[in-house]
């Protein structure tokens, strides 16, 4: 490729950036930048000028009103990653404090508390066992001999409860007893020294928080499109991650038609880590696909023919998380890998790893980010390495000696203060020596023959930094298209540029690079929400949560079918959904631009069909075992050893009776209101109380649910209305007493029972009314659907067996007396049902923040325990 004979004028300075930084809305509009003589003007008459930005580009128009799903959701619901409310401190006081300043406060104590509750064995194991005899949890006073060696903990626990209740109170004083206790045992009670544990947790919390603000592990994107062969049938292959933990790699054949259609079942590989990046390149007619997870990178090969089975070639393991994996477009089986420790490797499937650089420091100035990137250049032996401060090129044959600076965040490229490199990409398929660099503010095109000075620069104005980019090279003389994608906001932007134009000033040879046309915003996945059929409110909420999940990848392809040119753009979300949109090329010069109301506001019939199909599959895939997400589950193993729980051989008569009743009720499809033995007939249901408003409770509840403030309704109902009801009941009893005067003892017994059962009905029937399809709590032992190994089975049955809890049976299991009550109280709490149904995933998601070595994945599906298919 020839070097442009004349470049656009620009100043060149050195040193740190001068321009004050900050997000600048609209900074990319209305500017030509510079002009250069060129274009097909006749020199003698008048010079003709072309602008750096603002030349006409191709017209691409969206074929549909929104993106359409390509793949049907697979079984197993997606687990959302932690949200800000999971790790931030939230209380009234804090909100007030925060209103002034925008600093987020991490909820450190809650997370530490979660850890102690969820991993007591890890937190207090050995001392807990040692001291177990010296701590007394009962209510009665201690006897003389025991008093000298035993502490009564009940008061302490009460103090803690009180503290919890007063949380957020500005006049909060620690109980002296608690202070005394913590002074006494802070240093020795914990299995892991508290300071160390706190440091680790704090570090993890900070990490999670910074990930929420900007997660760079997804850089590059986890979606790849392997285009069809030049002269073959239009069948390409979509490589994407899936599964609950995004640890399954799929190679799905896709037929390109009006809307892309999947063909056959995908080839599938199970990996032992979340897939962060999928990179692909075609060399010598073969596709090489590199896959990066935190600690493993792998490479697959696909022969050109579609339908061929992908062959895994090699896997490497890194001690530090890898931050980059790119595939060489020049040599088969070559990749480059970077780790967060600042090491860059050239990885050849034949010869193994070659370390090119190891430098934990950033290149041009100090920046704390451990993120590193590397890509290939026009010379197969020269690799670029990047960190947040810029890019350097290294010769792999002598990496220490031969290198040059390609891009620096500084005055050289006219950067702003605070600007940082987000994603570099080699544009080799469009022009062998050009490079794309995106920062949070701008995109740059660089030519490695003229390092440091960008040949093109444009402020992209995206709300989130562009983590994904995709190049679609244009034929000679036509513009190249670049797609930029952001993760959190799902933004997609289409840019066009020309690497050269016909210049006169250059004597008729190639001239400089210019931006063509205006940037264009494309549909995001979330945009299709308004076109979906109307949903029930809670379904709508779940759907919204799923569709607005951060984007995780981007791929695109140009399709030329005679005069018709179209562009297909695939977008992957963190939930594993792949959506697609089609743009068509409008060759005619702009007639009147179509107004917003025409055509583009409603999707056609075939997208609508696709949406319905997708929704159906989604609801099928997410039909979870009841109680899986709605009720907390509890493992009894934590409390007792198996020996403790072993009952007398064979079911007792009571148990048999219970089972029979259960079976019968199931057959009838009825509900079990109360777990009393059959002999005690459940008391007749009391008359429904008319609430003040006049609506019956069910209607009120449904009305609230439809209006969307069901949560509030529930809250009111559980706290305020219980009190009210009690009041009303008392009132009624008094009236009854007054009216009837004297009653038999049994009658008064019944009436008090009524009161009790009324309360229990309140808590029992709550969830079952909410979704009639779900059996009540007792049938929790249902197994997860067969044939979906990824669905993690709910923790062992949570339903406490009433018989099991009778003091008799507890005694015969050797459970100490003072623990029996605690146990019963404990289990009864769980038996009451879900306390906070509208936020089912909250508690689960917040558990993810606990600093365990396996962090997120361990709680999601424990993929590490599974046997990997290929040592990955």
């Amino acid at each position, binding site marked *: 490729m020839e070097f442009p004979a004349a470049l656009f*004028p620009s*100043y060149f300075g050195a040193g740190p950036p001068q321009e004050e*930084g900050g997000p600048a809305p*609209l900074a990319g509009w209305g500017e*030509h930048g510079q002009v250069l003589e060129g274009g097909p003007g006749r020199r003698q008459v008048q010079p003709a000028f072309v*602008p750096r930005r603002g030349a006409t580009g191709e017209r691409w128009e969206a074929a549909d009103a929104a993106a359409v799903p390509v793949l049907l959701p697979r079984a197993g619901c997606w687990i959302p990653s932690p949200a800000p409310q999971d790790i931030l401190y939230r209380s009234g006081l804090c909100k007030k404090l925060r209103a002034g300043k925008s600093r987020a406060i991490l909820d450190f104590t809650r997370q530490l508390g979660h850890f102690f509750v969820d991993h007591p064995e890890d937190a207090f194991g050995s001392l807990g066992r040692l001291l177990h005899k010296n701590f007394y949890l009962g209510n009665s006073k201690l006897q003389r001999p025991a008093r000298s060696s035993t502490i009564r903990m009940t008061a302490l626990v009460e103090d803690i409860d009180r503290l919890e209740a007063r949380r957020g109170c500005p006049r909060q004083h620690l109980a002296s007893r608690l202070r005394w206790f913590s002074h006494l045992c802070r240093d020795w009670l914990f299995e892991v020294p508290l300071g160390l544990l706190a440091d680790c947790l704090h570090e993890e919390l900070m990490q999670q928080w910074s990930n929420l603000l900007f997660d760079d592990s997804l850089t590059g994107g986890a979606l790849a499109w392997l285009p069809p062969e030049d002269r073959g049938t239009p069948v390409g292959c979509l490589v994407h991650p899936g599964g609950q933990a995004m640890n399954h790699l799929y190679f799905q054949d896709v037929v390109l038609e009006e809307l892309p259609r999947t063909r056959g079942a995908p080839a599938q590989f199970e990996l032992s880590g979340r897939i962060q990046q999928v990179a692909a390149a075609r060399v*010598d007619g073969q596709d090489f696909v590199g896959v990066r997870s935190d600690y493993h990178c792998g490479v697959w090969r696909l022969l050109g023919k579609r339908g061929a089975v992908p062959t895994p070639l090699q896997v490497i393991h890194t001690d530090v998380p890898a931050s980059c994996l790119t595939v060489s477009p020049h*040599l088969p089986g070559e990749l480059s890998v970077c780790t967060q420790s600042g090491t860059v490797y050239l990885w050849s499937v034949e010869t193994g790893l070659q370390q090119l650089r190891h430098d934990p420091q950033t290149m041009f100035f100090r920046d704390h980010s451990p993120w590193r990137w590397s890509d290939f250049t026009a010379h197969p032996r020269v690799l670029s390495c990047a960190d947040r401060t810029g890019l350097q090129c290294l010769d792999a044959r002598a990496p220490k000696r031969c290198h040059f600076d390609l891009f620096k965040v500084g005055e050289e490229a006219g950067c702003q203060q605070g600007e940082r490199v987000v994603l570099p990409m080699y544009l080799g398929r469009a022009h*062998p020596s050009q490079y794309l660099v995106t920062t949070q503010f701008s995109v740059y095109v660089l030519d490695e023959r003229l*390092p440091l000075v960008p040949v093109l620069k444009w402020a992209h104005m995206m709300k989130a930094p562009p983590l994904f980019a995709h190049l679609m090279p244009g034929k000679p003389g036509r513009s190249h298209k670049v797609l930029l994608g952001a993760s959190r906001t799902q933004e997609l932007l289409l840019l066009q540029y020309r690497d050269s134009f016909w210049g006169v000033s250059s004597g008729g040879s190639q001239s400089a690079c210019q931006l063509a046309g205006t940037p264009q915003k494309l549909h995001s996945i979330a945009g299709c929400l308004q076109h979906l059929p109307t949903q029930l409110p809670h379904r709508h909420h779940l759907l919204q949560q799923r569709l607005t999940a951060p984007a995780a990848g981007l791929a695109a392809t140009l399709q030329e079918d005679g005069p018709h040119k179209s562009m297909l753009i695939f977008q992957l979300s963190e939930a594993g959904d792949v959506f697609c949109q089609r743009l068509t090329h409008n060759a005619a010069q702009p007639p009147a631009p179509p107004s917003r109301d025409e055509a583009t506001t409603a999707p056609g019939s075939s997208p609508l069909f696709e949406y319905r199909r997708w929704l159906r599959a989604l609801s099928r895939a997410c039909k979870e075992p009841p109680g899986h997400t709605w009720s907390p589950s509890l493992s009894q193993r934590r409390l007792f050893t198996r020996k403790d729980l072993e009952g007398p051989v064979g079911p007792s008569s009571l148990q048999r009776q219970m089972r029979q009743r259960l079976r019968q009720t199931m057959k009838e499809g009825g509900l079990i209101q109360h777990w009393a033995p059959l002999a005690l007939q459940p008391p007749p249901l009391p008359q429904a109380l008319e609430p003040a408003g006049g609506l019956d409770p069910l209607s009120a509840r449904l009305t609230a649910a439809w209006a969307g403030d069901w949560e509030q309704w529930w809250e009111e109902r559980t706290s305020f209305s219980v009190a009210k009801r009690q009041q009303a009941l008392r009132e009624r009893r008094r009236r009854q007493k007054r009216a009837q005067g004297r009653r038999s003892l049994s009658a008064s017994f019944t009436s008090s029972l009524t009161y009790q059962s009324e309360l229990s009905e309140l808590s029992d029937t709550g969830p079952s009314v909410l979704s009639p399809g779900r059996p009540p709590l007792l049938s929790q032992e249902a197994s997860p659907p067969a044939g979906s190994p990824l669905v993690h089975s709910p923790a062992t049955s949570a339903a406490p067996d009433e018989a099991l809890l009778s003091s008799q049976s507890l005694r015969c299991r050797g459970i100490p007396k003072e623990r029996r009550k605690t146990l019963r109280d404990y289990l009864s709490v769980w038996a009451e049902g879900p306390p906070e149904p509208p936020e089912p995933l909250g508690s689960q998601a917040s558990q993810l923040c606990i600093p365990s070595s396996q962090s997120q994945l361990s709680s999601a599906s424990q993929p590490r325990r599974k046997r990997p298919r290929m040592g990955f």
Partner: protein
Amino acid sequence: SSNEHKLNFRKSKEACLSFIQDALLQKEWKRAAEFLTCYIESLEKDYSREHIGPSEMIWRTGAEILWHHSQSSMKEFNCFMEQMKTLGVKRYLKVCLEHVFHLLCNGQIDEAYQNLSLAESWRFGEQTAIQDKEMKLIQAYRGLLDYYSWSKQKNILLENSEDGFSDSAVEQEMHGYFRKAAVNLKEIIKIPGVWDIFVKCYVDLLEFYGDHNEARQVLNEYAYNSKFPANPNAHVYLYQFLKRQREPKKSLISALKILHDIVPSHELMIDFNTMLQKSKKRKKRRLGLEVIFAALDYAGWKENVKAWSCLARQVKQIVISEKHLDWIKQEWNSRKDWWPAFHFSRYLAKRNWRENKSLSYEKALVAGILLGKGCKYFKYVSHQGCKAQLKRFRMLKKFVNRHNPVYLRISG
């Protein structure tokens, strides 16, 4: 309260901006224009301290809309830009420059010139560093337009002199343009930057008036001053100048040697190689081999027939003379682990044969010598060539077979 009012006002401003942005990104110019007219109100109460204020946003979005709006005219655009110039003192020069660019791109050279002259005479207090730069650019572009006028007069003059009459008025005018252009162009090219067109025009002026020393100095400064970016064009211009001056081969070679050092993949490397191959000095011929090998390392040269034939010719010469085989050996050493896959795979043999027979011929020759007659590329191409009964491929096969021992010496 007023604080709340400010907050609400800011919120609605932001909302309006995002509507404008949305419309622009979807190319709905009319809708954007409607929102923009609402946004103009924000100028009245400008409390913002962001570094891009509302006046700049109005300028940017307004200009963008007027570029694309189906009903806008140049007159309206000019009017809008004039208003924008008065909106912000700090951006006056920037807006002027952009206005001029738009006029230039629409072929309104005279209007652009007038605007540049006006902007040049603008003074407002002390200039900031950025304004200083913008002013220099304005002067440089005016110099450039003066240069074009000069060039036009020059052509008229040349035509006239061909016809046999001279016109002193035209000549006077031409010299006037020269002076104006030279002063401004000379200024900007002193400052570090990429000034390709300005340098070219200035050198053209100087050469016309016979000031070759000054021209040489300017080009040397542009190419070798370390404060300037490593611009390959600077070296190319110097080389072209030296060639025009009919300088000795030696200085041409040294100019290209430096270009080779900074951009080994520059297209002038073919000229450089040809020049070096013709040289009688061994060292130069050696350098020539290095140059062509280095150029072919780059992906952009993979299918360059000229380059491959240069390499094939030189390698063939060396093999026939059987002298300096060590040169090839040395070059090959650092490439033998990746050139076979990069250049000489079976896939490429098939493709090159299908798409470009002469490319495959040159490459097969090089492959046969470097990798021996067993090489996949050579085998495929020579087989196909012989099958197609092409004479030169048969010769190629014979040649490689005869010189097969060379391969052992190179790779050994």
